[in-house]
Structure formats: structure tokens, C-alpha cells
């Protein structure tokens, strides 16, 4: 206890030193000049209270750590595998999937417009998280510039529409393809890099794309962004009040119902859901295919891979390319939903959030990523009333998460394979 006392005291004093100028002193405009004013007694009391809290926390840190680790985990990750056979597990999983998909399909017709809109955003992040999961979770390549591919996808649709008048449905595969191309291009210089070095290069790539979009004003509109990006249509039916394109009919006129803006929101939600389901299906297959196994093997031991005749160049490039293509799809959908995009939407913090989703969910685990995407998008939304303390709570949650469950919400579970036992 004694040897903890001094560091704890120092921590408390540091808190005072940091908090007092930041919170205890206010700049007040007095006519044309600024005057420094001391804060009221209440704030000062809070500062002292905070310093005391830090002091006590440092003093009893170990005991608190014990309490945190004694919280029971929500579910044991292993153990039940031996009891339930793979066939049973598959069956359960299928049932679970059907129920969740059915609920997700029905839900928007009863929920409020704002909630459906939020859910659409969640689905975009699910798609991004699943895509990044290929690169980070499976192939073990730390990518801090994933948002670049998202941006490429978004701008592909926006620009192709603006200059060539392509529709969303034409642009969607093109956006995926373009993002994949960029993934491929990024993949080449970083083939030899791993870990921290790879992270730095990808971080740089993310910034390059953003700065390029910001400064190539005559093509991308620069910081002004691109507006008036049309929403996707449903087989030529548009969801606006009036059809914007020649030959198209508004949805409500076609069915002879009153116009309501919520049709559009629900349609976008369902479209996002469809894209997410497709993503889940494709990535699930991929992980069980030779290429998916090779990604994981490369994460585990690159040298062993080489000795077994696996071409790491091809494997790494395929991870980057395929991972990027999903960001491209998400980006195209994002720009369609938003109707307006600017480089502002593709800052580093987006990359960080997507990476946090992957890590929080549990590397390589699909269900984990989905849950984490929901948590990372909905929680800040719920905590909106805390205003500026939102990010603080967010950070606290991440720290607690890392203490309590460093392997993520639902770590990846290995698939049990039946062998023909003769």
C-alpha cells in the first residue's frame, strides 16, 4: 500500500494540474478583449472531486481489477463443441439466422423513420466491418486506411453518375470493382510489410485518397463535395415525389398510394440488408474455401506457408482486393443514401471506428463483427444527450472491454469438420 501511495498522489496532483486550467479557468469576452475568469465554486468542487477519484483509483487499482475480472463472461467460447455435433450446430445456426433475418425484414414497417435510418447506417458499418475483417481478422494484415476504399466506392458512384449519368445499379458493381483495383494497387507496395510498418503505409494511403479528393477540385468538387446523387430505384420505380429520370415512374404513383417519404427510408434499409446478407454469405463461403484457409495460414505462419508451396503474393493481394471490394459496395450505397458526399466523410476516424468494430467483435468472427457494428453505431446515438462526454464514455467502454474481454465479444469459433471414418 505504501509504495502505491506516492504514485497515486502524483496522479491526483497531475489531474489537478491538467483539469484546473482546462475547466477552472474560462475565457470571457468583455467588450472587445478577452478576460480570464475563475469558474464557479461548483466546478472547482468537481475538479477536486475528480482529483480525489483519480487518487483513490490509483491506490486501489489492483482490487478494482480483481472485481472487473471476476465478472462472469456472457458465454464460454469453447467447451460445448464436444456435446453438440456440427450437424446440430448448423441446424441451430440456420434456424437462428432465419429468425433474425425475418425480424430484420419485418421490423422497419413498425419502427420509426429515424430508427430505420439509423439501422441503415448500422448495416453500412456491418458491411465495412465484415470487409475489413478479411484483411485484419483473417489475413492478419493491419490496415488503418480502409476508409480509402470506402471513399473510392462512394466517389465511383457519385462521379460516374455526374459525368456519365450511370444509374446506381450499374455503378454498384463498378464501385466494388474500382475499390478492388485500388486494393490491388495498394497491395503491391506493402507485400513485404507486416505489423506496424504495414499499418503506417495503409494509414498514409487513406490520407492520400482523402487529400486527393479534397484537392482535385475540378473533378471531385474538392471540399464542396458532390451533391444531388440520386437514390437507387426499384426496377425503374423512384422513391421521390416526382420521377427525376426520363421514363421512370414514382413508386407511390405506380401503386396508386399516397406519397410518403418513409417508403424511401424503408427501401434503403431493405437494400442495405440485402447487401449485408450477400456480404455475409460470400465471406462465409470464402472463409471455408482454400483461399480463406490460406489467409488464416498466412496470419499464423508465413514461413510455413511458403514451405508448403503457397504463394504469399497472391494470397495477400487477394485479401486486400476482396476486402476492399466490400468497402466499395458499402461506399456506393453510402453515397446513394446520403445524396451528398465530401471528403469530410472519409477521415481517419472512420478507419479507426471500422477497425474498432473488428477488434471489438472478435477477430475473424462474423457474428461478433455484426454485434460490434451495432454497438459502435447505436451506443453513441443513445448517448447523444451526454453531448461532449460521449467520446469519453466511448473511450471508457473500449478500455473496459479490453480489460474484461480482450479477445472481443464473440471470438471466432473453429468449424468442426466431420471425417469419413472407415
Amino acid at each position, binding site marked *: 500500500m505504501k509504495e502505491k501511495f506516492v504514485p497515486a498522489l502524483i496522479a491526483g496532483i497531475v489531474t489537478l494540474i491538467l483539469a484546473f486550467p482546462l475547466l477552472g479557468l474560462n475565457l470571457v469576452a468583455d467588450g472587445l478583449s478577452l478576460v480570464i475568469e475563475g469558474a464557479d465554486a461548483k466546478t472547482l468542487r468537481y475538479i477536486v472531486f475528480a482529483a480525489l477519484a483519480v487518487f483513490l483509483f490509483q491506490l486501489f487499482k489492483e482490487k478494482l481489477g480483481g472485481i472487473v475480472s471476476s465478472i462472469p463472461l456472457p458465454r464460454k467460447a469453447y467447451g460445448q463443441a464436444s456435446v453438440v455435433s456440427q450437424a446440430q450446430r448448423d441446424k441451430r445456426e440456420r434456424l437462428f439466422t432465419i429468425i433474425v433475418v425475418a425480424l430484420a425484414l419485418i421490423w422497419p414497417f413498425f419502427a420509426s423513420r429515424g430508427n430505420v435510418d439509423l439501422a441503415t447506417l448500422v448495416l453500412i458499418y456491418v458491411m465495412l466491418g465484415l470487409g475489413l475483417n478479411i484483411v485484419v481478422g483473417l489475413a492478419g494484415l493491419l490496415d488503418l486506411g480502409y476508409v480509402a476504399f470506402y471513399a473510392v466506392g462512394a466517389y465511383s458512384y457519385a462521379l460516374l453518375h455526374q459525368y456519365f449519368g450511370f444509374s446506381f445499379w450499374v455503378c454498384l458493381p463498378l464501385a466494388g470493382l474500382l475499390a478492388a483495383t485500388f486494393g490491388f494497387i495498394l497491395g503491391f507496395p506493402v507485400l513485404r510489410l507486416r505489423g506496424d510498418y504495414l499499418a503506417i503505409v495503409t494509414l498514409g494511403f487513406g490520407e492520400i485518397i482523402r487529400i486527393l479528393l479534397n484537392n482535385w477540385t475540378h473533378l471531385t468538387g474538392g471540399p464542396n463535395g458532390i451533391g444531388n446523387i440520386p437514390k437507387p430505384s426499384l426496377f425503374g420505380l423512384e422513391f421521390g415525389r416526382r420521377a427525376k429520370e426520363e421514363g421512370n415512374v414514382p413508386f407511390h404513383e405506380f401503386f396508386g398510394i399516397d406519397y410518403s417519404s418513409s417508403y424511401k427510408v424503408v427501401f434503403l434499409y431493405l437494400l442495405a440488408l440485402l447487401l449485408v446478407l450477400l456480404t455475409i454469405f460470400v465471406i462465409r463461403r470464402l472463409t471455408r474455401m482454400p483461399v480463406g484457409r490460406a489467409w488464416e495460414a498466412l496470419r*499464423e505462419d508465413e514461413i510455413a506457408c511458403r514451405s508448403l508451396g503457397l504463394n504469399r503474393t497472391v494470397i495477400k493481394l487477394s485479401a486486400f482486393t476482396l476486402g476492399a471490394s466490400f468497402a466499395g459496395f458499402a461506399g456506393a450505397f453510402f453515397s446513394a443514401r446520403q445524396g451528398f458526399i465530401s471528403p469530410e466523410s472519409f477521415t481517419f476516424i472512420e478507419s479507426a471506428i471500422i477497425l474498432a468494430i473488428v477488434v471489438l467483435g472478435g477477430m475473424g468472427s462474423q457474428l461478433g463483427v455484426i454485434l460490434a457494428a451495432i454497438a459502435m453505431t447505436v451506443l453513441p446515438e443513445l448517448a447523444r444527450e451526454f453531448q461532449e462526454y460521449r467520446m469519453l464514455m466511448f473511450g471508457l467502454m473500449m478500455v473496459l472491454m479490453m480489460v474484461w474481454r480482450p479477445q472481443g465479444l464473440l471470438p471466432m469459433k473453429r468449424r468442426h*469438420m466431420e471425417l469419413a471414418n472407415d
Partner: protein
Amino acid sequence: MTNSMLKVRDLSMRFGGLLAVDGVSLDVNEREIISVIGPNGAGKTTVFNCISGFYTPTGGKINFKGQDVHALADFKISRLGMVRTFQHVRLFSQMTVIENLLVAQHRHVNTNLFSGLFKTPSYRRKEQEAMDRAAYWLKKVNLLEFANREAGNLAYGQQRRLEIARCMVTEPGLLMLDEPAAGLNPKETKELDELIVSLKEDYNVSVLLIEHDMNLVMGISDRIVVINQGRPLATGTPEEIRSNPDVIKAYLGEV
């Protein structure tokens, strides 16, 4: 010699000022077990790394099945049918045992993206073949019951056996084992001995072996190559090596 599988001539490897391997030559014929022995730091593993393509040798020629391979990328050499293990176990430890064996068959299965996404019949057949081959080798090395265990959770001796099985599913012509008996107990070493002999007898595989366990080496080798300080010291049958005064001197020091 017509049935020569691997021919190494005058191999040398220089790291800056250090000549780690100098003028090593060796031959491996079909269905032959050749051991490379030598004191610690003699350059045995460097020879292995040169042959398997992890290093590009600075001098000399390596010919495998009639093809010069000393400038070839490591994975390409491996695809020609020359696979190796490592001094330290290098399994994909977070993947299951069976997945380890499936990864090794990467070039045998259908890696086409679309046939995998749509599970075409040819893809399913190839996958099933890979599973069967994996199951066969698991049985052979007595690991069938651990098929769905994570490789990292196996006991050390089991991990060693799995490594050999993982090489064998690639259907190699030449298997290179770098100290396979290190850390094994006498019973496990004896099993390994039997396994290696069976690979040669039953599966027509040549084995190039680095090993310190002299009982194992003397018992199973057709020929032995002794390397000391990067230079070849002696080559011959176990009997010749056992009675070679130079070898005794190198191992025991000047008497």
C-alpha cells in the same frame, strides 16, 4: 546416376563477411534417407535453407528432378515436390489439425473463386479428396482423434508428427526434416524412426535429415554427410562415418 533426385554441387552461402556454407555437395537418390550431421553452428540449417529456396545461395548449383532450382522462389520449389519442416515447430497453431492439412493441399484443390462460391461439383470433389487424404495421413500418424483440436493445443510430440503429416499430404518426392527428434522422448523417437522408414519404404519418399540423435541417424540413414564449419568433412555410409577419424575429431575436439 540416373535415379538421382537432388543434386547439390559446390554450394556456398555468404552472409557479408561470413562464409556460412562453403563448397558443400550432396546427392539424394530416389528412396534414400540421407542425413546431414555436424556440430552446432556447422551450417546444416543454412544448407537446408538454400536447398528449399529460403536463401538464394551465393554460389554453386542445386538440381532437383533435372531442374535447376537455386534461383527459384521457395514456394515454387516446394511445388516441385520438395517440402521441409523446421527446427522449431511451425504449425498454424490457431487452426485445427485438419485445417492445417487442408492448407497444405492448397495447390491440389480447386482454388478458383467462383467454383468455390457456387460449390461446383469439381470443387466439392477436390475438397472431398483433400479431406480424405488428410484423414488418411492423420490416421497414419495417430492423430485422427485430434482432427478438430487446435494445432497449438497438441502435445509437442503430436505437433511434430502433425508437421510431418502436413508435408506428406502435399505428396512430395523429397522430404526435408530439420531436427525432427529434437525434444522427443525415447519412445517418440522410436516411433519417428519407424515413421521415417515407412515413408521411404511404403511411399517412395526420399528423406533429407538433419539430426543430432546419433542412434536415429546411424540406424536409418543410407548415407551421411558431415559438415563442419560450413565445409564438407566426410560423406559415406554410417559405418564409414562412425570410424572416420576426422569426424570423431570434429565432434570430440582435438584429442
